[in-house]
């Protein structure tokens, strides 16, 4: 028995000896890895439920999810690694995933693969096996594979790769327990764990061995030497820089010469992995008979068609709006009503308190953050729609169909859905950009999202356009929405060509197979995003609302003599370029707390008794050209605090402030142009 153990240890290489087999009872760390569209999130949600912690990876804007659970008497810590196709250094996600495994040494890495895309999803496994943590494979979506007439035999696959392979249908909670049973078994004993590792293409083996001996003894801990050699061959920038630092210069020169002489090294490594995949799957997989057409192919003939697909997309978007108006809008109106009632009763309760306190609670907190919260029903509908479209596989088709149009702005199809969500609310639009795989395209989409007219801005427009323009209101509103989208396109083209220059965004996107969505996945997505929004509403948004309230309340006695009025008067020279008086400037500033505030502020500034009497009053005192310019600026102005807060969260302070500044300038420039034209006409 001891002899066989020794044999096992030498054959699995020394790397597994570094971490001793844990005693039962301690916390076991499991890293969950997998390519996009393999159902990794579903597995994570099944095991951790609401016991999740969502944050960011240190110093990165990449989401980090972690959860705990107890299984077979052991405490498990499950870390969800970013979903990536490989472990190169091409994106922060890939670097995070590999660094976690190398530096934090999880007890087990669970690699989820998709039975319906077996070869491609095994590519990541080929990258995971040489890393210093044992791997268990979850062969997911066997039902989807069946629907496409593909058959995969898990036992044969397991015998070939020589790591545990567990068949599963995570969306139906089948096989998930068995998967973690296999993890548990591996944690208790690694005997017999001897994976069949991929090798570099045969013509490069000798030179790889040479490279390995050159770097021997100079590889910084805890990086495995063989893996570092492979990454050097692949031309991995991070590892190349690391080795240039740590190797003596003569050795580095020798290494550099080898790499220069083998600039096809990356292809040799990738080919080696695909050769390995071919060997592993040859006996385990049965392809469909010729002529058998799967569900995905049949659906894609319509859904991915450049004409029919566009028609279906329009129907889907129409259905989304219909849902918003029939489901979310009434609840929002109801919430608004109760918010009004709450305001009145709070005002009555605080009747004896100092008037500033009453105003702080009713106008500052409820009027600002409270109004923002009434948008939660709309957010829920949009988050649910986003989750549904993504989880069924349709989102990729929408992106594909829209790609040719988005190219004009240097974006590709993936940016379409997030921007579209902006019509409901800019918050899910900015958060929805997480589906975009290129950092640059994602940043550009975030910058553009606030230019999509959200439902709150449309509400302000719906009130003010008839007040200013009577019969022509519908035409004016239509023109303003068109102008917003035109501005978005122009700004997109300008940023793309002159600001965020760089490699053109390549459009390479997997079209996942269609499958039934999982309620739990969508439910948790809605829950987490809504919770995050409410947390922001309770912190950043309340603070900002109170700040804006304070500026409009002090030093008193009324808003005409407040700080915000002073700022408005200070900004009047700028506003005058667009024909805006200081009252209109103040309304713009107040709308930063929540877009609806524009109406309330105008009615106070014009001394109207209420919104009803505001319309005729404002129509009399604001000339048509100024009114037109004001509506333009209002549509394009700095977004509400809630949006600014998510832009900061997703892109960082620098981009959030840049976004504020450029929207401020653009709105006034476009407003100024419209004013000039309107006055001239």
């Amino acid at each position: 028995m001891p002899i066989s153990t020794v044999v096992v240890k030498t054959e699995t290489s020394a790397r597994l000896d570094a971490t001793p087999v844990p005693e039962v009872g301690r916390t076991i760390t499991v890293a969950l890895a997998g390519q996009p569209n393999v159902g990794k999130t579903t597995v994570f949600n099944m095991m951790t439920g609401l016991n999740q912690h969502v944050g960011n990876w240190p110093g990165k804007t990449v989401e980090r999810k972690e959860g705990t659970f107890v299984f077979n008497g052991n405490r498990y810590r499950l870390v969800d690694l970013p979903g990536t196709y490989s472990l190169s250094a091409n994106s922060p996600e890939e670097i995070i995933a590999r660094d976690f495994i190398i530096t934090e040494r999880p007890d087990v890495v669970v690699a989820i693969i998709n039975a319906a895309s077996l070869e491609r999803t095994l590519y990541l496994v080929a990258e995971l096996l040489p890393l210093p943590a044992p791997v268990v494979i979850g062969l997911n979506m066997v039902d989807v594979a069946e629907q496409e007439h593909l058959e995969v035999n898990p036992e044969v696959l397991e015998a070939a790769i020589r790591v545990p392979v567990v068949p599963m249908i995570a969306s139906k909670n089948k096989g998930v327990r068995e998967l973690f049973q296999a993890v548990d078994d591996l944690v208790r004993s690694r005997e017999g764990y001897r994976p069949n590792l991929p090798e570099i293409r045969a013509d490069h083996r000798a030179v790889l061995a040479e490279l390995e001996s050159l770097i021997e003894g100079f590889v910084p801990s805890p990086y495995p030497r063989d893996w570092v050699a492979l990454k050097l061959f692949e031309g991995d920038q991070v590892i190349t820089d690391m080795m240039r630092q740590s190797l003596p210069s003569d050795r580095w020169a020798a290494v550099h010469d080898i790499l220069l002489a083998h600039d096809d090294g990356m292809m040799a490594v990738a080919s080696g992995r695909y050769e390995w995949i071919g060997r592993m799957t040859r006996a385990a997989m049965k392809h469909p008979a010729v002529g058998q057409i799967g569900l995905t192919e049949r659906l894609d003939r319509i859904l991915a068609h450049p004409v029919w697909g566009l028609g279906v997309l329009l129907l889907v978007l129409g259905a989304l709006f219909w849902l918003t108006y029939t489901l979310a809008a009434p609840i929002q109106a109801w919430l608004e009503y109760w918010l009004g009632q709450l305001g009145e009763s709070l005002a009555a309760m605080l009747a004896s308190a100092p008037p500033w306190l009453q105003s702080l609670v009713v106008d500052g907190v409820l009027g600002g953050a409270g109004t923002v919260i009434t948008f939660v029903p709309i957010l829920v509908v949009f988050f649910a729609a986003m989750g549904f479209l993504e989880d069924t596989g349709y989102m990729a088709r929408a992106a594909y169909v829209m790609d040719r149009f988005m190219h004009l702005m240097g974006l590709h199809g993936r940016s379409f859905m997030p921007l579209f969500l902006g019509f409901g609310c800019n918050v899910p639009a900015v958060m929805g950009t997480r589906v975009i795989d290129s950092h640059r395209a994602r940043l550009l989409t975030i910058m553009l999202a606030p230019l999509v007219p959200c439902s709150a801005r449309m509400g302000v427009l719906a009130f003010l356009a008839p007040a200013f323009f009577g019969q022509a209101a519908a035409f004016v509103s239509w023109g303003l929405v068109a102008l917003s989208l035109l501005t978005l396109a122009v700004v997109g083209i300008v940023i793309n060509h002159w600001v965020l220059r760089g490699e053109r965004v390549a459009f390479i996107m997997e079209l996942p197979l269609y499958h039934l969505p999982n309620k739990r996945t969508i439910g948790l997505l809605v829950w987490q995003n809504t919770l995050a929004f409410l947390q922001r509403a309770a912190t950043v948004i309340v603070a900002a609302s109170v700040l804006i309230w304070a500026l409009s309340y002090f030093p008193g006695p009324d808003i005409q003599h407040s700080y915000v009025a002073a700022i408005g008067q200070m900004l009047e020279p700028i506003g005058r370029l667009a024909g805006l008086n200081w009252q209109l400037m103040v309304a713009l500033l107040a709308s930063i707390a929540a877009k609806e505030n524009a109406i309330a502020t105008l009615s106070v500034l014009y001394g109207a008794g209420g919104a009803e009497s505001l319309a005729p009053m404002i129509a009399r005192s604001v000339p048509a050209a100024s009114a037109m310019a004001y509506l333009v600026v209002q549509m394009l102005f700095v977004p509400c605090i809630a949006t600014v807060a998510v832009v900061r969260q997703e892109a960082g302070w620098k981009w959030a402030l840049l976004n504020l500044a450029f929207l401020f300038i653009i709105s006034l420039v476009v407003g100024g142009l419209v004013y000039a034209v309107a006055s001239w006409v």
Partner: protein
Amino acid sequence: MSTDNGPIPLDSLPVGRQATIEAVSGGHGLVNRLATLGFIPGQRVDMVQNFGVGPLIVNVQNTRIALGRGEARKILVREG
């Protein structure tokens, strides 16, 4: 050696035809991303959708991949 079977850019492969990848050109990042997905010399591709303009859909490694026309042009294939 027949000219009708010489290497052609992937974007000119008609729908329903199969081909073998000959070469992939472009920047390191792009070639790496394509290689990860299975666009490697010697691998088979099927053209699933190609209308002559705009993006196209191919099947490689049992996966449907949508490619921009510019990306497809960088992949040389030999039909058959």
